[in-house]
């Protein structure tokens, strides 16, 4: 069940707690690379490309093992790293006049990392300012002008990691079964679970994850519910949101008004 471990500190501490896999939500491949560099206390201007490439690929493998969909951007970076690594293995051809400046194949990547780091920091700096509607208020403003339009900031963007988290928390609560029930009684299908959830949502506008499984707190029920919710989400039948970071995850029926927004986005 457990993916094969190697002695890499990055992965082994990720796996130390049995199924306790910690996945930071990285903003992208550059963010992940910066994280690896920081974690290994490496000099960003002199990245040991072999080490970084290996850890990067391990991380992607970890995502694969968890069946998370890996964004193409991560794969693109993986191939870039491998390309750089292979170029560094080749002897330097001094006769070649093609690119006299770019002797270090890492140069472009390092430049991108430095630049990215800079904007990441700038983002934190401007985010820490006293924002209108958050720290400061103008006279009689019930809502700041510009934020009135959009109530739910991209409710679907962070959900995958959050759902995986909620899923793990719940699984942790299930008592460990000391035996295996070979003849499974009445097995639960995802379709049943979808129907159950939908009918529940017709009665009530809002339910949270715990409620769906509280009656029957078994591993099977939780897993099937989780899959059902992912499916519902894919079909755009429900919307998932949180009131606060790490808060409870709530579900509500998707409304048709969202479709019009989607249409706009396509244009």
């Amino acid at each position, binding site marked *: 069940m457990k993916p094969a471990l190697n002695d890499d500190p990055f992965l082994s501490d990720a796996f130390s707690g049995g199924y306790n896999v910690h996945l930071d939500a990285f903003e992208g491949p550059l963010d992940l690379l910066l994280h690896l560099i920081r974690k290994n206390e490496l000099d960003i201007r002199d990245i040991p490309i072999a080490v970084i490439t290996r850890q990067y690929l391990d991380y992607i493998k970890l995502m694969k093992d968890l069946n998370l969909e890996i964004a193409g951007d991560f794969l693109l970076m993986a191939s870039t790293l491998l390309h750089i690594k292979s170029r560094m293995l080749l002897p330097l051809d001094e006769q070649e006049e093609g690119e006299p400046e770019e002797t270090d194949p890492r140069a472009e990547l390092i430049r991108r990392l430095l630049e990215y780091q800079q904007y990441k920091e700038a983002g934190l700096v401007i985010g820490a300012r006293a924002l209108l509607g958050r720290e400061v*208020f103008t006279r009689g403003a019930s809502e700041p002008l510009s934020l009135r339009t959009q109530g739910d900031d991209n409710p679907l963007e962070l959900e995958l990691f959050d759902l995986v988290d909620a899923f793990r928390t719940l699984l942790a609560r299930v008592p460990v079964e000391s035996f295996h029930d070979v003849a499974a009684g009445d097995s639960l299908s995802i379709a049943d679970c979808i129907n159950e959830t939908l009918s529940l949502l017709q009665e009530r506008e809002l339910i949270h994850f715990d409620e769906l499984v509280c009656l029957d707190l078994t591993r099977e029920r939780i897993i099937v519910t989780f899959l059902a919710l992912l499916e519902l989400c894919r079909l755009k039948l429900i919307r998932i949101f949180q009131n606060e970071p790490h808060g409870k995850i709530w579900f509500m029926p998707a409304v048709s008004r969202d479709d019009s927004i989607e249409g706009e986005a396509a244009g």
Partner: protein
Amino acid sequence: MSLSAIIESLIFAAESPLSLDRLCDLLQEYERNQLKVSLGELVVFYEERQGGIQLVEVAGGWQFRTSPELQEYVARHIRTKAAKFSPSALETLAIIAYRQPITRTEVEYLRGVDCGGVIKTLLDKKLVRILGKKEIPGRPLIYGTSKEFLEVFGLKDLKSLPTLKEIQALDQTPFLELQEELPLEQNSAPDNDIFLPFEAGPC
């Protein structure tokens, strides 16, 4: 009535930041210099008073705002949909703010990920706007920050963005060589500098 009092009342009653130019329009019986002096006195008055409201310069104008330290108390009464920004939104916003005018491809190159969704959210929140189209193949849209961006982030102008740490680039080859960067020191509004082939607006 003192001129300071007149200016104070105008700024108080205005819905959005009131610029010196606008004050000049409104108070033509006074010299621009007089207005400047009185406005200065007013600013000093509020600074020294250390009260619950401040007179601040944002988005090229003057506005009364509550002190940030009082956030906790004001928030008890005022219910705003708090300005929440995810790290990716802030990153993208920072890139657009510092590098504008910039195309989506360039933002994505800098961040290493697809930014379509984030940029759309920022457009919806009106923090980012479309400045025009770039005269390169494909004519991609170019983006920049809006007046609302300055208002929400409490900035006088783009020049007052916190300065980036210098990138000590390994070599001096310019990034993406495609367009002129907007120098951060430059005071002029970015939109006056670019060729706008059509009225800026959603495609």
